[in-house]
């Protein structure tokens, strides 16, 4: 197999005295969609924030595209093609939709390519075009999620970390968002690490999955195997 685009080796992180991550190891290969599932407070978001240099790593190493990024400052990662759509979407509420999109590609200076990419985002998400000058905070939850993904695409990511894209959305919109995620993966060749509480949906969209429990990886397998696993079915698929 090819080199992984992302590799975590025994990564630990804490918030004060609370140990949030205990020696997490995982790999993501180019072109994959990998799911990370787990209950509330398992450490999924913390893992993504540690990868992105927001939560400091206490022990272990993180390698992205052959480069160690364990201690790199967060703002340098999007430039390298590593990008996150964080939990809760974190749209800049008092910036317009257009400004939110432009900020997604903040490090880029190629004005014409940026404009072209904004058009490309509109082709995925026509609703954003109608809302262009509206403030981000006034969009609906689904529109904000779409904007958050669009904003991430503006940085031309190679690896996209998605934190609970289905959170709080109606089933129809969730399906649409997952279709778009697959499309981004196949059409644009973006590798995706997908954090979800909706384990069923996430595993169906993925080729492999990791299960996180209280800050540790307790299971790693192909998505199909996880979907068929009785323990997983009992714990995460509500059976």
């Amino acid at each position: 197999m090819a080199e992984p685009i992302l590799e975590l080796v025994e990564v630990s992180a804490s918030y004060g005295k609370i140990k949030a991550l205990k020696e997490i190891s995982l790999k993501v290969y180019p072109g994959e969609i990998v799911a990370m599932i787990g209950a509330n407070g398992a450490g999924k978001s913390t893992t993504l924030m540690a990868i992105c240099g927001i939560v400091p790593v206490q022990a272990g190493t993180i390698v992205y595209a052959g480069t160690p990024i364990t201690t790199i400052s967060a703002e340098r990662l999007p430039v390298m093609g590593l990008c996150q759509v964080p939990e809760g979407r974190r749209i800049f509420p008092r910036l317009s939709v257009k400004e939110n999109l432009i900020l997604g590609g903040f490090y880029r200076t190629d004005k014409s390519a940026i404009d072209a990419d904004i058009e490309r985002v509109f082709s995925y998400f026509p609703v954003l075009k109608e809302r262009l000058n509206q403030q981000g905070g006034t969009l609906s939850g689904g529109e904000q999620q779409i904007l958050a993904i669009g904003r991430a695409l503006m940085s031309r990511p190679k690896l996209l970390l998605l934190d609970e894209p289905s959170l709080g959305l109606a089933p129809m919109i969730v399906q649409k968002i997952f279709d778009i995620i697959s499309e981004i993966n196949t059409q644009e060749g973006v590798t995706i690490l997908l954090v979800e509480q909706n384990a069923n949906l996430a595993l169906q969209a993925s080729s492999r999955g990791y299960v996180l429990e209280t800050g540790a990886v307790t299971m790693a397998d192909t998505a199909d195997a996880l979907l068929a696993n009785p323990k997983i079915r009992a714990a995460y698929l509500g059976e």
Partner: protein
Amino acid sequence: MEVFIQQCINALTLGGLYALIALGYTMVYGVIQLINFAHGEFFAAGGYIGVLLLGVMTAMGLMESAPWMCLGVSLLLTMLYCAFLAMGVERIAYKPLRKQTRLAALISALGMSIFLSNGMMLARGPLDQPYPLEYSSGGFEFGLITINNLQIVIWVLTAVLLVALNLLVFRSRIGMAMRAVAQDKVMSALVAINTNRIIALTFAIGAGLAAAAGIMVGLYYGSVRYDMGFVPGIKAFAAAVLGGIGNITGAMIGGLIIGAVEVFGAAYISGEYKDVFAFIILIAVLYFKPTGIMGENIDDTRV
């Protein structure tokens, strides 16, 4: 009537200066929720460096041939100096405390304020530093009303700086990044914005504007002193609170209102109490409407 118009002219001048200083408070508060008590000192430092540079240019004999050019150059250099001074202060006194409680940074700001004003006293002594008088001569008279050249210069310069700031914050890429950092620092870092650099830049811009006000106050009142930052600093802070702290347009409006209240209060109520009016407004705003004129509701002009 003439008196009233004359007071309006004075109010506009003073209000513009307060607005320039108030912007520094409001911008810094907007991005890191810190009330930078050392901000008044950047204003004072501006007055000090300005008088120093003008003195040097007088000694070089440039003043007689090209006084306005001397002023322009001094102004630019002073703004630049104070911008770097503010970035240094931020780096030393605030940045290391950014993850601590807000109170820690606030106390550090008070300490910095005392340090800077004493530094100026030690460097230049406790006495007034006189400004050259060339600039205040000449002007227009309409009956009893006079507008001197200096007032016009102050208006124009204030207006230019305010417009430039608005363009920077609301029309430029950097300004967009500043507004983003004010709204969500983590997300800003996730879109490749160097938040530390933006915070430093915010301090620099605020201090540059205050420094310009410092020079103009020196010219307008004829002298500067090491402790001149304190009272105008608090008045400008009152202006920022009145306008809605964190809100740029609010700071401009607040500055003009505080200037007007002070001038008219002094003229029609009591000259002796002129410094008190701003404080009354500050207390009233904090008591009745802590979010200020432009707070909460119209918040799209927050930094």
